């Protein structure tokens, strides 16, 4: 009994950490990984998750903690699906942004490729875009870099090939040695010119702060 009371005190912090980890996870987190991070036996983790799940049920939250695919994750409650559906239909952008398409193209041509390799090509943090692409099922984690750090490696999915109507990434137009296209050469040459009136107008209309991407 005394043992159990001591465990309870530790639990409070562990349970909060559990919630924090599960919240930021984008896929089910395996028990073993949770056990390792929280420095607790797997059995304890399972037990904590179970009681957390029933605590959410009792409190009547709109989300639940479920055990799925060998791990734990938060998800919205089934009865609230109509709201979630409305959110997905109303709230999602219907077009892949230019940045997302570029990132997808990099993954397609360079797979398997790590987040940091993508970052070094695009010059920006690709996390948000990768999440979007993954949530749409166009890319997925295809393994880990065997080197130090074991970075997650990304690749395209069969769904991606299907949407593009090709059988394999080899069917994508081949990449030849880089030759800057005319537009780029011109831009380099004109580095210091005043933009023409037409450019100015389009710049002003398209570059409002509110349109700036938030997580690309």
């Amino acid at each position, binding site marked *: 009994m005394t043992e159990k009371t001591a465990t309870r005190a530790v639990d409070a912090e562990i349970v909060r950490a559990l919630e*924090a980890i599960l*919240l*930021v*996870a*984008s*896929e089910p987190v395996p028990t073993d990984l949770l056990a390792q991070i929280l420095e607790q036996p797997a059995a304890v983790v399972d037990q904590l998750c179970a009681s957390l799940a029933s605590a959410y049920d009792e409190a009547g939250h709109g989300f639940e903690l479920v055990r799925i695919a060998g791990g734990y*994750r*938060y*998800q*919205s409650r089934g009865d609230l*699906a109509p709201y*979630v*559906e409305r959110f*997905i*239909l109303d709230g*999602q*952008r*219907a*077009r*892949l942004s*230019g940045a*997302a*398409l*570029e*990132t*997808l*193209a*990099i993954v*397609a*041509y360079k797979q398997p490729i790590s987040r940091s390799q993508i970052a070094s*090509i*695009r010059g920006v943090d690709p*996390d*948000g875009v990768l*999440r*979007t692409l993954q*949530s*749409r*099922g*166009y890319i997925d984690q295809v393994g880990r870099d065997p080197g130090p750090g074991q970075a997650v490696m990304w690749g395209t999915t069969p769904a*991606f090939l299907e*949407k*593009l*109507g*090709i059988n394999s990434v080899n*069917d*994508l*137009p081949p*990449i030849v040695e*880089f030759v*800057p*296209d005319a537009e*780029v050469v011109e*831009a*380099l040459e004109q*580095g*210091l010119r*005043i933009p023409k009136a037409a450019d100015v107008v389009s710049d002003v209309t398209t570059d409002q702060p509110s349109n700036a991407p938030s*997580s690309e």
Partner: protein
Amino acid sequence: MAVEVSTPVFEGPFDLLLHLILKEQVDIHEVNLATIVDAYLQEIERLQSLDLEVATEFLLIAATLVELKARRLLPGREDVDLDEELALWEERDLLLARLLECKTFKDVGQVFGRLADEADRSYARACGPDERFAELMPDLLEGVKPRQVHAAYLRATTPKPEPRLDLYHVTLVKANVADALAELLDELPRVGRITFRRLTRDFVERLEVIVRFLALLELFKQGLVDLEQGEKFGDVQIVWTGGDDRVSVSALTIDDYEG
């Protein structure tokens, strides 16, 4: 990633000046402008690889400081030219205002740093809807052809032209001691003797006059000119003593002034 212009200790002229005034000086009531000017000029000399714009900014502030300091060297104060006095005050107030603004944003920057550090400790949920809703997700790839993926790849991997920012709307005074020296070395041997007032009468910008004065001091130090002032606030007479041989700017070691 671009190399940020920075000096070993100070990131810019305001940085340096703020430091000299706010930190070096123990007793603010005993602040000696001369000390600041000297320390400032010393620091500028120490800076080897300043780019032109930064160097100009440093120089501009140095010029103002030198002018303030020169005030102390001038004999007698009874018949001060009111216009000049006023101009100097304006110059000083401008510098003061810029220092205050710079200090203000330095302080805001620190607050931003604290906010960012605090915010960095929290991680956002960004998981997106689970597979139960996959059907609803609009197909973002609809209509996208392999050719467009190819084009996007080329766009992503093509080195972007450095975004050059337009400068023409800015009327920066690009005064430079080296250029001033070159002009003086061309002009003075020809005229032999001239007053400072005449030498600078065509200049509109105050800074140009100051830079010309600095160049003249340089020549004086090198023993190429004599400077005479017959009376208080009288014209400064400049006499070329460098002989008839052409002296090139490169023969004078003035590297520190170049951008």
